């Protein structure tokens, strides 16, 4: 079902982009007040790109090659806007929100599979 797949895409993209944002010194400082440690930056970057890839895989496998990429890009844009808004107004909320988004994506998965 498309809305659930889209929810899955949005949640995954949001968590992934939040990880990528937090792997950057400036935003890590916004959220945690310290520069990002080297190892952590690498982990976050890896997790971020993995999440974006997983979101693409989910979009294409559920929606096919014509609608999947459209939905993937749309979800990335919407999620990125949310990341920017949180960083600008509530940077401390970014990590908990991203962590909450992951189980949300997982919860949407079985429904998306069934639909």
């Amino acid at each position, binding site marked *: 079902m*498309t*809305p659930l797949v*889209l*929810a899955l895409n949005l949640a995954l993209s949001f968590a992934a*982009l939040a990880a*990528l*944002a937090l792997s*950057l*010194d*400036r*935003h890590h*400082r*916004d959220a945690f*007040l*310290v*520069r990002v440690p080297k190892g952590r930056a690498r982990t976050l970057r890896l997790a971020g790109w993995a999440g974006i890839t997983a979101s693409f895989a989910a979009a294409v496998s559920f929606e096919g090659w*014509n*609608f999947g990429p*459209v*939905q993937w*890009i*749309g*979800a990335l*844009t*919407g999620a*990125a*806007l949310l*990341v*920017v808004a949180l*960083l*600008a107004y509530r*940077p*401390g909320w970014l990590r908990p929100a991203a962590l909450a988004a992951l189980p949300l994506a997982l919860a949407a998965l079985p429904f998306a599979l069934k639909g």
Partner: protein
Amino acid sequence: MRQGFRQSMAWLHTWSGLVVGWVLFAVFVTGTATYYRTEITQWMRPELQAGATFDAGRAADLGADFLKARAPDAVGWFIGLPQPDKPLIEVHWWKDLAGPFHHALLDPATGAPTAARATQGGDFLYRFHFELNMPPLWGRWIVGICALILLVSLVSGIITHRRIFADVFTFRRTKSAQRGWLDAHNVTGVLALPFHLMIAYTGLVTFALMYVPWGVTAAYKGDEIRFFVEAQLMPEVRAPAGKPGGLVSLSPLVAQAQGRVSETLEHVAVYNPGDAAATIVTIFEEPHGLAHLHPQIAFDGASGAELGATGIAKAATHISASFVGLHEAHFAGPWLKALFFLCGLMGAATIGTGLVLWTVARLPKPAERPGFGYRLVRALNLGTVAGLPVGLAVYFLANRLLPVGLEGRAETEIRLFFGAWACVALAGLLRPHRAAWREAFGLASLLFLAVPLVSAATTGQHPFDGAARFLGFDAAMLAIGLLLAAASYRAGAPRPRRAGAAEPRPAPRPAAHRAQAAVPQARSAEGAEIRRRA
């Protein structure tokens, strides 16, 4: 060339963006609204109940009966069949291919002109999006040229942006006015960049044959119709025989066509209806997919025999139709459509912030009198960015407040839209600049917030009446009104100091005292990074 590549691209981006920015802002706002064209039209015709299904054959016959009486000598009839979301028969007819095109809306039950209020509804916003309410060809050329310059502006903007990946999430709203506007421009531009590139390019593709017709003209020796037929965009058409003939009843043909194609039948066109060689074409909704291709079947108007049908399009047609499909996003379900809508708003925001940035970056020193060019840009910015929302709200309010039976009602709505827009632009000249922004946004906000109230008062339909027919529309008006109220408040807030002036550090965030020590070190690291990149 003394300047570097990036500087010359920055120059190109600044000026290409400025000259078309005002038109493009209006094109983006109305285009974004067009994603909800059907919903807007439904709201603007509150007399009609959506949801019923109709007998397409009977509706086609009713439309043909009306046209036989009204325009027997027309060279073309176009009958839009009623659908659950649009319970009207919409007929067009023309006596000359160059126009004028006449138009009427009929009640699907009786075939008589509808009793619903006269309005162009969302169709006005749709047409304005690519024709600017001008004669079609003029408007399309102007919008096309602007779209081409938009592509130039997008590409030069990407090159100009020094740290497109590193700054992708960066929005420093508290640093300085110029920094804030630049970051807002970058964020809305970069995050929705795939959309912006797609929408500018596919918009041009939609009218590509009008903008660059020479390939088809040369290959088909001027016979464009042949091209459309071979591309499977339309079935064979016939020249008129030149002698009068009868026209068969449409409903059996409609039934026959519906038996062949599983999509919804949307239109029935009749070419040369009074002629012995009349042609009837049934046009279906595009099958679910990206491509915007309508299956069509043609019949002989005198005998009812099938003349031909569109086949399967080849790759080139399919790709170009997919571009058009992507632009219109008919395939998108409600949630994906909401994301398209959001991207459209981000496009409008990119243009709006870019326009404002131009003036913020050239802010005259306190003792200096701003030059004419500067004042012109400022006035046009205010007139466009704050004036258009006022016009839109007035358009919706006029729909509810003008008497239902008023002569020329649909045109009056549109005149009020432009009138209100122009009033705000002109009134802005009389007021101090900041006050003008605050008041114009404030006015727009009040007008949008008034829309659901006025609608409830005049139609008796409101979100709490159990039916909640226009819940979505009312909620959207409320959200837009609140957004504009926030904009009005921000426009009136004290101005952060100019970039370059000594800037106060942003207020420490909660618990910042714990890590104050880390900040100077981090700042110098950032400084070093900027120096390294520069």
